[in-house]
């Protein structure tokens, strides 16, 4: 799922710090923005835009962070609005709802741990690629 790879060049200290910040910032924004699911995506997007003129290593990791947040958004949004409809409307709690909530909690915890792991390793200057998101980031981010 998460693989350390050779990036082609060794990033500077400031590059690894900024790249690591892109992951850290998404975690902080997630905590600040709870329970709204879109806050961390907007925060990651602003961070990406702020670093769009930075070096390739920084841009690549900002893109990977943005893509990972983009995937979590639809899953969390459905869960969020489904919960609201149960709280404020006459919708009943079903087995489907409980199953869905357990799934997105598991998905979010996995994503949370992966983000922390990537932030730590990126700060050390190591290039960490996620399954699927890494390939997408390579396609989107040009040298």
């Amino acid at each position: 799922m998460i693989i350390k790879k050779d990036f082609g060049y060794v990033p500077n200290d400031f590059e690894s710090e900024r790249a690591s910040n892109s992951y850290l910032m998404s975690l902080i924004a997630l905590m600040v923005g709870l329970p709204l699911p879109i806050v961390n995506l907007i925060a990651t997007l602003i961070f990406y835009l702020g670093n769009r003129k930075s070096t390739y290593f920084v841009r690549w990791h900002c893109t990977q962070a943005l893509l990972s947040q983009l995937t979590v958004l639809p899953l969390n949004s459905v869960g969020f609005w489904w919960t609201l409809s149960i709280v404020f409307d006459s919708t009943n709690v079903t087995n489907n709802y409980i199953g869905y909530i357990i799934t997105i909690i598991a998905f979010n915890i996995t994503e949370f741990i992966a983000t922390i792991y990537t932030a730590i390793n990126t700060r050390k200057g190591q290039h960490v690629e996620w399954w699927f998101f890494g390939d997408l980031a390579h396609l989107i981010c040009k040298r």
Partner: protein
Amino acid sequence: MEQQKVDMFLMSNGKYFESHQITYISDRLSQLDDSKFVLLQSVNLQNPTMILIVSLLGGSLGIDRFMIGDTGLGVGKLLTCGGFGIWAVVDWFLIMGATREKNFEKLSQVMV
């Protein structure tokens, strides 16, 4: 400019710039005329750590952006209450790098 003066300037102001810019600044300063040294000392460089503290305390009012000279972004941040809190959080991570870049721009204007 004498190497001693360049070293003195970098020792006292090196922390205001990105680490990868130091070599470039050192080379450029060595080529500068001695008469520019006074002008160099008068450049108003901002301390990135102080700006980070300002960002933590007054980021939602855009004070940090005003201080580093980004007036447009500062007004935008002020009017939107720090981008509804999101921009303020993002700037905690961006502002130190942005301050160092601004310092480098100010120094570059003197080094021309």
